[in-house]
């Protein structure tokens, strides 16, 4: 436990003792507050049971599963190409990114690799879905803290990115574009110039949000020092993505593992922040959106020519074996453990989604905070219900 953790724990113990004294004197009793499943701050149907003393949280417990759709089981009765239509809907804001690790796992089992152009386009679409996803987070962050204006800017500018995804894949939210061995189609004409223009627009959006939120004293007062996750606690709870990098752990699967994707072909920066508080996590996400726009531009500069589909049999049978592939999705590490028995469909798929692990820290983090900070912390952890419940 580092110093910050100690301080938080001591503050909690001290507050407990003080409250106990007051309770003995006044015989006050606590109150159990149900935050959710229907609550504007839970992005869907997460339920948090909080035991309150006044405005202070004594303990809190997330209760998930209100939107469980059974994707792991459903994949067992689908063929491999059909599975992508399902797993699109896990993290519904960055859906293309959900397809990639599954397809890579299937390709790994079959021993094939997508042609370079397909790898490049996959990476570009992956980063576009990250931009679409996280830019909405940046707007939503304002709403959670009471500023209603940024979310409209986010919805306005995310639309440009969704148009790009639609232009390339035909689907705005659920592209279902990835195929085993490559992609369904090549990029349409004019798409590359359009993308460059949109990337410039998204950088302007980032500047706008930075001026509107991150430069605001009230925003800083609400987020700095709130919900501090020390480095080792973050590692113990298995956090990933910006939540982990916000605690100062320099860990990004895009850079740290070898995959048939194009990230290692260009230069880019992994952002980290030493503080581990809500501000750090939000700041990291802002920087990552900006970095992603540069990644997309650099990939467009070096886009190779050639086919977008490798030679694969018409009816795909994945040979017997097991494969684990994880990628750095917008919300964090997302991985698929695919077990195949040589049939048309997978025998078993284990989905490791980022949000489920990220919210596991909630009981630890919410002890001793005030009710408004619950919202700040939940917003800064950034989960998507589909990604928790699957």
């Amino acid at each position, binding site marked *: 436990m580092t110093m910050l953790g100690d301080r938080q724990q001591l503050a909690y113990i001290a507050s407990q003792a003080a409250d106990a004294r007051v309770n003995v004197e006044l015989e006050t009793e606590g109150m159990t*507050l149900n935050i959710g499943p229907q609550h504007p701050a839970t992005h869907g149907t997460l339920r948090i049971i909080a035991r309150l003393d006044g*405005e202070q949280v004594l303990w809190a417990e997330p209760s998930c599963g209100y939107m469980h759709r059974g994707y792991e089981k459903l994949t067992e009765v689908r063929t491999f190409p059909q599975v992508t239509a399902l797993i699109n809907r896990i993290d519904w804001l960055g859906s293309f990114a959900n397809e990639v690790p599954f397809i890579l796992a299937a390709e790994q089992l079959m021993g094939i690799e997508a042609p370079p152009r397909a790898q490049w386009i996959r990476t570009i679409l992956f980063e576009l879905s990250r931009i679409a996803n996280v830019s909405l987070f940046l707007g939503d962050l304002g709403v959670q803290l*009471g500023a209603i*204006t940024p979310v409209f800017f986010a919805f306005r500018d995310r639309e440009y990115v969704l148009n790009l995804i639609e232009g390339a894949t035909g689907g705005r939210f659920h592209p279902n574009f990835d195929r085993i061995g490559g992609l369904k189609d090549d990029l349409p004409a004019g798409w590359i110039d359009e993308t460059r223009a949109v990337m410039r627009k998204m950088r302007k959006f980032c500047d706008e949000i930075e001026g509107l939120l991150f430069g605001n004293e009230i925003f800083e007062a*609400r987020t700095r020092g709130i919900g501090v996750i020390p480095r080792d606690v973050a590692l113990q709870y298995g956090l990933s993505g910006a939540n982990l990098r916000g605690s100062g752990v320099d860990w990004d699967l895009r850079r740290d593992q070898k995959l048939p994707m194009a990230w290692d072909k260009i230069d880019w920066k992994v952002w980290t922040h030493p503080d581990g508080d809500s501000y750090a996590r939000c700041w990291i996400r802002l920087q990552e959106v900006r970095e992603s726009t540069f990644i997309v531009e650099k990939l467009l500069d070096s886009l190779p020519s050639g086919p977008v589909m490798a030679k694969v049999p018409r009816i795909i049978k994945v040979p017997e074996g097991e494969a684990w592939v994880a990628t750095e999705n917008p919300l964090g590490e997302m991985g698929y453990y695919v077990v195949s028995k040589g049939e048309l469909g997978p025998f078993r798929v284990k989905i490791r989604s980022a949000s489920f692990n990220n919210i596991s820290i909630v009981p630890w983090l919410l002890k001793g905070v005030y*009710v*408004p900070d619950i919202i700040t912390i939940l917003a800064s952890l950034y989960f998507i219900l589909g990604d928790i419940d699957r």
Partner: protein
Amino acid sequence: MLGLIASIPYWAQSLLRVLGGIVAVLLPAGTIVYVFLFKMMSFMQSRLGPMEAGPFGSLQLFAEVGKWLQKEDLYPERADRFIFKIAPLIVLSSTFLLVAVVPFGPDAWFTDFEAGVFYALAVSSVSVLGILIAGWSSANKYSLLGGLRAAGQLIAYELPMVLAVIGVVIQAGTMNLQQIVVAQNAGSIFGWDGLGNPYILTQFVGFIIFMIAVQAELTQTPFDMPIAESELVSGYMTEYSGFRFLIFFIGEFATAGVFALIASILFLGGWGVPFAWFGWTSIDSVDNWMNVVGPLIMFTKMMLLVFVIMWVRFSYPRFREDQLQRFAWKVLIPLSLVNIMATSVLKVAF
């Protein structure tokens, strides 16, 4: 004008005043909702706002009121019904009581009350009572939290507001709002009377503190923790629907308008134009046409001040309850005490 008022019977005078009061509360409230809540907010957020009802959506508010009036009057099963029902009325009545002392022209006032400032600050805190009992009687945990937050916040911000106004009272030497207006417009800055002497120049600190306190009294962002849609789901208003919610809604914006009117009287010279322009010397020599132009001037100043209130509301995130209390007790109150001290010293010196 005075002769005209005096020549009609007392009951008719009273009726005129009540009707005038209703207009003075509801007209600004409707205008504020349309111009700022519907249109300005939309333009700030790169959208158009209501466009269908009437030209540029100007009748949208009537459509909304019609919708609210049709809704069923619901109350929670375990609510304290009588208290639950009268809570919005208490909030709105505080607004009507507040407008009673606001002068709109040399003769266009509802009551010419000697302790007008004192009265205004006293009745403005009645709304706290309504909000507190609304939160308590709803039998809802979110409402309870919202109501208690509102009580703590409104009491904390009452004090800087009173202290900020004391500077004006010291400078004007009167608590009568009408005479405060006259003192500003008949005054002069170092002998130059082309602008009168609006107290925003001398009481600038007081004006800023007053506007911050008004923002908190109105529970507008960044001080909207009692409502806080994203955490308390509208706080003390959670369980209200239909016309009771409508009353809360009107009360919120009408109070914004009335507080802006009071701020314009205290700091911006109220209904008056500098008396030197027309050679007036006292309130008795002001021409009668000011009774028509005065309300328009007041309305313009009110819209300007409400614009600032709404501008802040739409662009800032909200404070946390403890940060807000700290801000009130550690920053605003000491600052306003210093302001009072400086005003007193300068008053004696000049």
